[in-house]
Structures are given as structure tokens and as C-alpha cells.
């Protein structure tokens, strides 16, 4: 067994899936010759050639939108937006075309598209290289969004996304690329199911609900609180759209307390949707106010001092969990 990083898991899965399915192709900025700005796509051009590994011009709308026609004629496109912050020029194509085309054609054309979005802060990138902008897409039925928070899911969710017949935005957290390592057996073909959250750690006092990098912080906070005898249940959402409501609701039925954590600004973030689900569907099970630990309602700052201040920390998550338990 070899210990590999989160980004290696992505790279390896891309190699495996592109070998397995000859209708796949990858298109993005600096993804071929350069192997990707983070090296997530290194070695793919050498292995699959320029017909299938396309170095795109700086044209995000094209990168996202050309996949619709390509999928219609039988391809399985794997577009990449270099930084999730650069997705806004592609927004029109993603929400109006990619997400809706299956519905618009009443099922005549499936859209098996996996669009990878490197996102998140903690890498000193400033506002155009740090955002967690997944919530921009929450109001878009037809779109699937996954966000792996572990090495295994970096591989397992990517594999599931590529094999899915639906368009999937795959949110890969830049801070986890090289900071997270795990054993991943060679030849592993585990498919992390899309649409299912996981209770990653069981506990009875309070539930922490998160995904991606902040899911790892929730695990750290749970470790710390365990020393004080507080048992935190940690849910890794894994899929952001459509949300797995029942796993969250079942957990709250047990703990009665919910703390939702994400990096994006609190207003309009995914935490609001989860809080609304809990209020609507398990209000009587709650015995403390729902808390959200989220990014502040500003743009994402550059200087390290400010970046650290902006991002939710393990200590802040632990404090919120403790407050919920003490309520």
C-alpha cells in the first residue's frame, strides 16, 4: 500500500478513467503541456495525446459549453476550470446549458460531464485564487456537485462523477492537494456513491456538518473536544447537490444540535440551505439553535494575517460545538 496525496489521487484517477473509457477527453487551461497549474493533470498529454488532452485558449465559456455538443455526439468530457474563481465567464453555459440540457430535451441527451473546480483558501492566492464559490450553483436543478474531503473520496468521487450520466461539478480543495495523505491501494476502484453523505465519526452530543477542507477541521475539533468528554458526530457531506437530507436529519434526531461549517461567506452559503432543511423537517428534534461557522461576508483577503483571520479555524469550530452542547 502506498500513501498518496489528495492531488495524486485525482491525477491517478484521471489516468485510470481515461484509459478505461476512450470517449473521455480533458480540456482546460494549461492542462496539457504544463500538466496543470497544480500538476493535477501531469502525464496525461504524454499518455493520451493532444486529441484527448486539450490545452484550451483562455476561454472558460467555451471550456464549459463545448462539452454539451461533445456529449451529445458521444464523448464523455472532463473540463477543468483552472481556479474555481475563473468559473464566472462559464456560468451562463453551466447553468443554462450544461445543467438543463437533459431536462430541456426530456431525456433525449444525457450530459455525462465532470467539470473540475480547484477551490478554497489557505494558499495565499488573494481573491481570484481563493474563493469557495460552490453556493453560486446551488439554485440550479440538474447540476450535481461533489466536494471530496479525503484522499479516498478524491479518487472515489471523481471516479463516480466521471462514470455518472449527469453533469457534475467536482470541487477539489487546493489546501488539501498536498497536505492530505492516505493509503490508497493500487488498482483500487472504489466508487464513492454520489448523493450520499457519510457519518465519518459518531458522537451523541452535537453534529458537525461540513465538506472539503473544513470537514478535516471538524475532525480535528472533534478530537480536541473528546478530551473534554464531548462526543461530536461529524458528517462529511461529500455531495452538495442534491444534498443528502436524511443522513443529516437522522444525526440531528440523535444529537439535537447542529453546527454547519463552510468557508464560503455565511449569507447565501450552503449552510443556510441545510439550516432550512433542519428547521423544516426536524424542528422538534432540535434542542439548541442551529449554528453556522462560515467565511465572513466580505471578499477573500490576500495577506496571510487576514487570510487566517477570514478562514474558519479548528478553534472556532470547537468553540461553536462546545457552545451548542452547553446550550
Amino acid at each position, binding site marked *: 500500500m502506498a500513501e498518496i496525496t489528495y492531488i495524486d489521487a485525482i491525477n491517478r484517477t484521471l489516468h485510470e478513467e481515461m484509459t478505461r473509457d476512450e470517449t473521455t477527453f480533458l480540456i482546460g487551461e494549461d492542462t496539457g503541456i504544463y500538466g496543470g497549474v497544480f500538476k493535477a493533470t501531469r502525464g496525461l498529454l504524454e499518455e493520451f495525446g493532444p486529441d484527448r488532452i486539450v490545452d484550451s485558449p483562455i476561454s472558460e465559456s*467555451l471550456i464549459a*459549453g463545448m462539452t454539451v455538443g461533445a456529449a451529445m*455526439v*458521444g464523448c464523455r468530457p472532463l473540463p477543468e476550470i483552472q481556479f474555481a474563481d475563473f468559473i464566472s465567464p462559464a456560468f451562463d453555459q453551466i447553468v443554462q446549458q450544461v445543467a438543463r440540457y437533459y431536462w*430541456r430535451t426530456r431525456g433525449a441527451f444525457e450530459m455525462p460531464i465532470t467539470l473540475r473546480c480547484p477551490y478554497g483558501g489557505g494558499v495565499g492566492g488573494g481573491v481570484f485564487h481563493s474563493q469557495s464559490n460552490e453556493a453560486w450553483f446551488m439554485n440550479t436543478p440538474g447540476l450535481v456537485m461533489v466536494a471530496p474531503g479525503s484522499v479516498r473520496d478524491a479518487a472515489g468521487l471523481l471516479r463516480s462523477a466521471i462514470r455518472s450520466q449527469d453533469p457534475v461539478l467536482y470541487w477539489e480543495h487546493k489546501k488539501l492537494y498536498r497536505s492530505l495523505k492516505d493509503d490508497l491501494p493500487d488498482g483500487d476502484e472504489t466508487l464513492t456513491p454520489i448523493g450520499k453523505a457519510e457519518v465519518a465519526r459518531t458522537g451523541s452530543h452535537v453534529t458537525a456538518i461540513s465538506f472539503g477542507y473544513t470537514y478535516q477541521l471538524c475532525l480535528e475539533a472533534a478530537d480536541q473536544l473528546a478530551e473534554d468528554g464531548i462526543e461530536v458526530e461529524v458528517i462529511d457531506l461529500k455531495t452538495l447537490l442534491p444534498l443528502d437530507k*436524511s443522513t443529516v436529519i437522522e444525526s440531528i434526531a440523535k444529537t439535537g444540535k447542529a453546527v454547519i461549517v463552510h468557508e464560503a461567506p455565511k449569507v447565501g452559503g450552503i449552510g443556510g440551505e441545510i439550516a432550512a432543511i433542519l428547521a423544516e423537517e426536524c424542528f422538534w428534534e432540535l434542542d439548541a439553535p442551529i449554528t453556522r461557522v462560515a467565511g465572513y461576508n466580505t471578499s477573500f483577503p490576500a495577506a496571510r494575517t487576514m487570510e487566517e483571520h477570514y478562514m474558519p479555524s479548528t478553534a472556532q469550530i470547537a468553540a461553536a460545538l462546545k457552545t451548542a452542547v452547553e446550550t
Partner: protein
Amino acid sequence: MAEEQETQFSFPAKYRLTGEMEGCTDERKLELFERLLKTREFDARMRKLFRQGRFEGTFYSQIGQEACDVVIAYQLDKQDFVGPSHRDLGASTGKGVPLKYLTAQVYNRVDSPDGGRYTACHYWHPEFWVMNPSTSIVMNWIAATGAAFGYKMLKKDNVAVAFCGDGATAHGDFHEACNFAGVHRLPIVYVVQNNLWAESLPVALTTALTDLNHRADAYGFPGVSIDGNDVVETWNTTREALMRARSGAGPTLIEMKTYRWHGHSDIDPADYRSDDEVAHWMERDPIPRYEQYLREHKVLNDDALVEVRMRIEAEIEEAVDFAENSPRPAPDAYQSHVYAEAYPGFEFGDRNPGGANG
């Protein structure tokens, strides 16, 4: 008889069509004429039915521009990809989509290809590879470019054709698509129908160019501007562009100068244009010009025209009956095909959780 025909068409000599239609048999010339006339008659009938309140929404008339779509679509193989815009009735009729699917689309009935869920007048059909047009301008330009990429990558022999108007050439997606197709020499033909107006915007406020073929100069592939109301010139130009695409020589941009006789949609009085301008273009009506050409070449005579008209009339009648008898969709019929896969957390929504719903 010949004299009668001369008097029937009083075009100035400059509008007279000349030259040969390369590689087109008389039989196909006649069939092409039938599709052009069918497109015109269908459109005129839909305009009448709209005024009678037979369907909701609005109608986007293509009258005046038919040749731009029909002539190239008619030459395509069934598997060739078409990315139309909202006014491209002729992309469907030219490719041979039966009229009953088009009337059902206009009426938003269950027998339209999308069962009434998408948008009226946005003609498409999956089996004919006419994609479902996006109302957002020039969005399909990118999809068609993707289809051309797919055909090339999968080593299929097919080509793609994308349609847009003059206004769309100002959009960033126009540039991103053309630029990419030029880099990768994709098998695609881009057709810009310059009808002088983008809804109410005159073309001079869209671009400082006079001839839009120059757009192609920026992308490293040929661009040509033609009279889109001249069926012969349109045939020869599109034929060559399609051959270029099929042979691997890459894209071509064709600006077709044309005119829409009516408003942007049928609720638009189009009072931003002068009567003289409309009259000027109605004189250049592509269909009678082509009819005269066929008569001069002994491909069409009065008897044949009567037969053609009868066939068209019958198909339109049948198509209108089909749509009017096609049920309106069930109120909740749109609640399907959001996703191809099943997800435990997905639901269409509950407006009264824990209570009674109606």
C-alpha cells in the same frame, strides 16, 4: 407560356439568379424548392394562427430569410449536427423534420420532442440532430463547436453547422467558439444571417464592420459574404464550405445578407424600420427568385408547382390538426428528467411539509 412566366415575375434584371448549382440534380433542385416554399407557407400559417389566438406565447417569423437555413440544412446527412438559433425554422424544415413536430413545438403540446416543457418555436428534433436552440443568443454556437470537436475526436465523418444573426457576433461566445474551431480546424460551418437588425438594434450599432465575413480573418479561416436571398449563390457557397469541413480543411464563416420581413417576434410591430427598407428587401424575396430560375431552367412548370403546393398544403393541414389534437401536457409533466441518475436526497419539493398538499 414562356411569356406569361416572364410577366408573372417582374424582378429587375439585377435580382435574376444566374449560374449553375454545382452538383445539384434537377430532382434535388425541385425538392429544395419544395422545402423553401414549405418553410414560407408554414411560417405564414403560424402567424395567422397566432393572431387567432390558437397558441400562447409568441411566434418568431423567419419569412424572408428561409434560404439561409434551408439551402445548407438540405445538404446535410441526417447525423450531421445543427445548432440553430430561435429563428431557424428552416434548419428543421431544410433537414426534413416532419412539420407535425414543429407545430406541436409551437403549440407546446405533448407531441413536441420535449413534450411542451421547453420553449415554443424553438424547433429541434433529436433523431434529426437538430439541437434544441437556446434562447440566450449564440449559446448554441459553442455547443455546435463542441459537437464538431466530438466528431473529430471520435473520428466520425460528420460535420456541424451553427446559425446565428448579426447581433450575436458581438457576443463573447461567438469569439470563443470561432477561435477554438480555427485552432483545431474543426469540421464546422458557421452561418451568420445578417438581417440588419438585432431585435431593434441596427447592425451599425452591433459592429463597425460592413461585411461580417471579416470576422473570420481574426480566426485564421475563410470568411465570405454572400446574398443570402440568392439560392444559387447560397447553394454553391455552402456546398464548398461543407466540403471543406468534411475534408478536414476546417471551418468556414459565411455571412448571408438577408432580411426578416416581420418583427423580432409577432408581438413586435418593428416600427424602428422604414417602409422603404422593408419594400426594398421584399423585392429580393429569395423564393420567387429561385422559382423563376427553376422555370428558366425547365425544372419547374405550372403543373409541377400545383403539385408542390398541394403537397405542402396537405402537410401543413395535417400538422396543424396534429398539434391542435395533441393534448396539453399534464400540469406536473415537467417534473421528470432533472437528473439521469437517482439521488436519495433529490425531491421536486414539498410546499407544505407535514401538512396536506394540493
